[in-house]
Each structure stands twice: as C-alpha cells, then as structure tokens.
C-alpha cells in the first residue's frame, strides 16, 4: 500500500487540491497531508521549501483541515487522510478544537513527529482525539529501544510509521542497510500494519520496502511533482503498482 505525502497549500491551494486528486486517482491507499510549519525539524529540504511557499500562501493547520474537508466532501471514495503536523500548531489551536475540526472534515488520523507517545502532552491529545474516532500514528526509529517500541506500538492506531534511517525526510540514493531488521523488531511489539518512510523516492526503492512492510511512505518525491498533476498521477500509479502486496 502506498502512503502518499502531499503538502497542503503548495504550490497554492488549488494546486494542492489537484495533487490530492491526482494521488487519489493514482491509487494511493492513504494520503498523508502535510501541514506547513515554520520549524519543520524532522523534514528535509524539499518539504521545508514547499512548506515555506505554503506558509506564504497563508496555510496553517486550520487551512489544511479545511482543505481536507473540501476534498473528502467532493470525493466519497477518497482514501483516508492522515495529517502530518508538528505539535505547536495543534497546541496553538487547542487540542479539543483540532480534534473537533478534524472529525468534521473526516480526517482519519494524525502523525505528529515531535509528540513522543510517552509524553503527558500525548495523554492530553489522545484524550481529546480518540473519543472522536481519530487515530494517532506514532513513529518508530532505528534508535528506538524495545521498551519504546512496545509503548509506541501500544499507543498507535491505524499503523506504525517506521523511520527508515537516521536524519530528516528526503530522497536518498540507497535504503538503510538495517531496514529489514528494524521492521522485524517493530513487528515484535505490534500487530498493527507497518509503514516505512524517510528516504523512499523511487519505484525501485518502493518495491524493496514493499517486500518487508505493509505500507510505503513517499514524500519528497511526490511534493517535487505537486505542480504537475498529470506527471504526479503517473508517478503515483507506478509506485502503487510496485508497492501492491498480495
């Protein structure tokens, strides 16, 4: 299954809506909709630059949720949307309000890279979001200890997001050598599906990842094509074809 990352508000509002439609038509299983933020510490240059453009277009968390709502309303068969946002925009808007707006917009889940599962802030967010049926996906990293994998597996809903390698998001020449071992370690602690991201940018890499994981997350390579919906749809189709598992 392909998890396709799209940056909201990039290159502009209409362009990101067209990109959402392109990745949905292309067959993405889940859409990860990125919320632009001024200090995207987990992201590499492509997503950071796209985020800056989107911020300049007046995009933030509230605008991204509204965009998701408009897209979901227009497409009853759309794949589920998970928002990728940093913690501070959620805190600024207030957890109850974020959860309510997201539920109304039919957003299925949240991925928050700077919200550790064992933080008291995670308790507060889950208390606000879980009753409304919103899933929160926690991230596992190559450095995660067994105890942390246990905790993040237990708190994740939907799937567990495995960060393939050290460093920020973005395309890499090669997949991390330790990836199969990492995925196996994660699976020891959760029965949820496992999606792998960070550094997956080509069909060849997606095919490699699909051999060991249930989901393949592609971000920067999609964001780079957000201005050209036709090329984007073809690229997504290619990724979906290799990422399909039976």
């Amino acid at each position, binding site marked *: 299954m392909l998890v396709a990352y799209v940056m909201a508000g990039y290159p502009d509002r209409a362009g990101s809506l067209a990109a959402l439609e392109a990745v949905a038509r292309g067959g993405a299983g889940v859409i990860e909709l990125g919320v632009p933020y001024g200090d995207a510490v987990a992201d590499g240059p492509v997503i950071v630059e796209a985020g800056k453009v989107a911020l300049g277009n007046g995009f933030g968390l509230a605008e991204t949720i509204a965009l998701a709502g408009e897209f979901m309303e227009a497409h009853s068969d759309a794949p589920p949307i998970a928002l990728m946002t*940093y913690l501070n925009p959620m805190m600024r808007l207030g957890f109850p309000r974020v959860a309510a707006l997201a539920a109304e917009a039919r957003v299925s889940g949240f991925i928050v890279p700077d919200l550790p599962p064992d933080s008291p802030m995670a308790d507060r967010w889950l208390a606000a979001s879980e009753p409304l049926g919103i899933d929160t996906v926690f991230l596992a990293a190559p450095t995660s200890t067994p105890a942390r994998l246990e905790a993040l597996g237990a708190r994740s809903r939907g799937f567990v997001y495995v*960060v393939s390698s050290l*460093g920020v998001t973005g395309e890499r020449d090669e997949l991390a050598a330790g990836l199969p071992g990492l995925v196996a370690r994660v699976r020891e602690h959760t029965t949820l599906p496992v999606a792998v991201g960070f550094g997956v940018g080509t069909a060849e890499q997606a095919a490699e990842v699909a051999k060991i994981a249930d989901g393949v997350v592609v971000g920067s390579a999609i964001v780079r094509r957000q201005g050209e919906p036709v090329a984007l749809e073809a690229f997504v189709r290619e990724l979906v074809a290799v990422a399909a598992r039976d």
Partner: protein
Amino acid sequence: MSDVLLPSADDAYASPDAQGFFGPYGGTFVPETVMPVLAELEAAYREAQADPAFAEELNLLLTDYVGRPSPLYRADRLAEATGLGAVYLKREDLNHTGAHKINNTLGQCLLAKRMGKHRVIAETGAGQHGVATATTAALMGLECAVFMGTEDIRRQSLNVYKMRLLGAEVVPVAEGTGTLADAVTAALRHWVERVEDTFYVIGSVVGPHPYPAMVRDFQAVIGTETIAQMAEKAIPRVDAVVACVGGGSNAAGMFFPFLRDVPAEERPLLVGAEAAGLGLESGKHGAALTKGSPGVLHGFYSYLLQDDAGNPLEAYSISAGLDYPGVGPEHSFFKDEGLVRYEAVTDQEAVDAFALCTRTEGIIPAIESSHALALLPRLAAELGPDAVVIVNVSGRGDKDMDIVREAGLGVD
C-alpha cells in the same frame, strides 16, 4: 580550588520533575530518533552527578583552566553614576574565552567523553558558546562542528575566525534570518542524522530535557560563588541581583542558587533583562517572557514569540546572544511563580549602559550583559539611593566593537 557542587536531585528546589517539567514548562518534544539518546544522556548525567571524580575533574578545570572563582567586584563609579548605594559586578567576563559559556561546555564535553563520544556539535549566536565549545574540544581532543547563522557570522566575524583557529568547523546556516534560532534548528537536524557518534553541546538552558536542568547545573557555579563571596566580603544586604536573559543560562546559573539556598525572606529581588530590541511595540525584539505566549519550539514548552498559527516568529536584538524567540523553560516557571521579575531593555538602553560601564569602570561588557547593566538606573529609581545591586557581567565586549561602532558610539 573552587568548590563547586553539582546540584543533586534531592535538593529542596528539585525542579524539574522526572519528565523534565518545571511546572507546566519544559519536557521533551523531539523526533523519536532522538528520544532514546536523550534518555541515555540523562542517565549518564545522573551517574556523573553522583560520581565525586567527575566533580573533581570539572572543579580542577574550572579553577586552573577557566580561572574561577570569578571576582565579585565593587564598582563604585558605576554605582555613583546610576544613583545606587553599591553595585557589584560578577566578573564572568574574566573567564577564559571571555564569557560564562565555558562553565557549561567543560561540563558537557567531560560528559561526552564519559559517554564515549568523540565528536561534538554546537549552535552559536554571538559566537561565545561556539568559541567555548571549540576551545573545550581542542582541550579534550574532540572533533567539533559549530552551526552559526549567516547574519551572526557577519556580526561576529572575529569569533568565527577564533573557532576556525581552534580547529572547529563553522557550518553557516542561511535559513530564516540566519540567526540563533536557525542555527539551533540546523544543529538539531544534523544531530538526528549523526546521533550515534555525536554529542550535542547545547549552549543555553533550552532544548529538550535534560538540557535545561543540566546546563543550569553547570552554570550554577555563578550563583553559588556569588553567595559565598557576599559572605566573604561581609556585604550585609543585597537588594537585587540582575542578569540578562536570551535562552537564559547565565541568569539561571545566577538565580538558581539564590532560589535553592537563600530563604525567601532574605532573598534579594531577582531581575532578568530581556531584549526589547527596537521597542516592545515595534515587533522587533526578543522578549519572549514579556510579549510571548506558551508554545513548543526546539523540543521544549515555554514562553515563545509565535504567530496565531503557532509558527515561531523572528526575534530581533542588537545582541546576537539575546536574538532568540524562545526562552529556557525554567524562566517561564520562575515568571509564573513570581520568583523572578523579567523586564525588557531596548538596543539603545543597552548601548548606553555599555558606554557608561566602559567609561566609569574601564570594563567593556558584552552587549548582552549590557542589557542587565541597563536596569541599574531603573532599580535606583525603584529601590532608592542606598540600594545594593549585583549584576552578572556574563561576558566581555571585545566581540562587540563593530556593533557599538555601527550603533553610533564614536570616539572623536
């Protein structure tokens, strides 16, 4: 030898809690990759705190290498010029490398070695923390890279040269405004990539737990010495203790021992000086405590200059060291609890205080420390002509010659 005791977890004032919170502030908000490394760091730090050999090694360096204790100097002409009974300057500017920053870099680099890391990275604004880290890395034979905004590289070219001379790599950061906040972000990003062999030496009481508490502990030597020197000099009464606050490490190091060791009824008024830049209403300042609201940046929850959508705002100050949109979480706690008062000082007030201290005492303070000195006339008006005030002169102003010249301090 200076007798520095690292604060331990069972001190009366025991903040932060086990998860790194000072009241609601602080905590750990970083990508998962870093979380296990922070837990390792905390464990290593706790172990070092309990090991007398660690304290002994650090104390020896603070004494023979840094030159501690730094003097508590009675500045009579400055007191007269500002209308106060007495002014004492805590001379952190006399430390090796010219600022308080080295107290912390020695502690953290010793810890890095103890953890078996051979490479350190740091962020720097004014360059003082970068120089202190590069110096300590040279001393201890560690590889060193310092992240510095391009605007700060321009403002502090002498320190850039010094770091390179000391063998450090200076990594220019062109993102954002090319200042301290951007350097922190770049250093954090790099750390996530190299977390297995690299120790991140954070220069202030900011960042995820355990950094705010650890940096405060390493800087607490400032306040501990000051309290001891007050007794040695038989200073009967101190009305106020002042320090500048950017991230807030020299202020935390000065204030924390007063809060921990001095009963509230005997405690002087503690005042932190933030950067008001071009004025609090101009939108161009670094006054997170005065004008900000709580939020998360760089891995911790604290007062923050942010927009309505939760994006960090660009800070501004004439002083690269105070040019930061956040502030250490313990200061947010101090503010809410009323333990410390925070005031904002404009660029112009700081430049005036810089000139006054230089001309009355022959001491050229850092433009950061000048923000603290600028509170003296205000305190004279508030506390009266007999008041006794201690100012932490966190660094020396050699690095600021170009800045004050640009600000119009001519010598014709």
